[in-house]
């Protein structure tokens, strides 16, 4: 199950959804909005996505994980729009008969989502500036 939502992510509902009588282990990763980035204070994050492609890629990532590990349920949920500090921007949950698979798949899912899925984060800093995440470091890399 994959989804994008502009509302706060309902973690309890995801947990209920991935729990099955056959599952022995559930691993859940929750990405939350940090109050600092590159040494500066962050007050708010804002996410945008190329939505249809993001959903499609998230579905493909779930399929890849299911090809690698015997999983029961998978949930990949990303929040879009403004996300206050401390709230979840992404939740990945995996249930499996054994914990090793749940951990490995959960790690794969979030790592791949972060590398591949067309979602972008804009950081609102306490000093009033607003930047796309990595805007300066990316630029710098390229100019080197």
């Amino acid at each position, binding site marked *: 199950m994959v989804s994008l939502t502009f509302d706060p992510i309902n973690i309890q509902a995801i947990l209920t959804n991935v729990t099955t009588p056959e599952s022995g282990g559930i691993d859940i990763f929750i990405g939350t909005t940090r109050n600092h980035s590159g040494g500066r204070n962050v007050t708010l994050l804002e996410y945008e996505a190329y939505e249809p492609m993001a959903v499609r890629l998230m579905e493909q990532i779930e399929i890849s994980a299911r090809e690698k590990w015997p999983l029961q349920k998978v949930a990949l949920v990303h929040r879009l729009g403004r996300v206050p500090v401390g709230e979840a921007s992404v939740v990945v949950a995996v249930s499996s008969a054994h914990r090793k698979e749940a951990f490995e798949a959960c790690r794969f899912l979030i790592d791949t989502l*972060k590398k591949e899925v067309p979602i972008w984060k804009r950081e609102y800093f306490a000093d009033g500036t607003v930047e796309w995440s990595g805007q300066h470091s990316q630029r710098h890399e390229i100019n080197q």
Partner: protein
Amino acid sequence: MNVRIKLFSLARDLAGFSEQMVDLGRDPRAGAVLEYLSQRNPEFADWRSSIRIAVNQEYVSIEHALNEGDEVAVIPPVSGG
């Protein structure tokens, strides 16, 4: 040949638009979209190596041959999670 360019995040900010139908001439490759944008804003040239192109919602190489009416998305480095 006409394709629909879609721009996101920093690429949209640099270009000043989020979506546009453009004529890329005969037999264009996906990379032609970056040429088109770089001609209009030289800052795009700085970003070229980090930008990915998706055609009809799938990542492609810059050599990918475009077809009439393709949706060509300019994908700056992603930062979800």
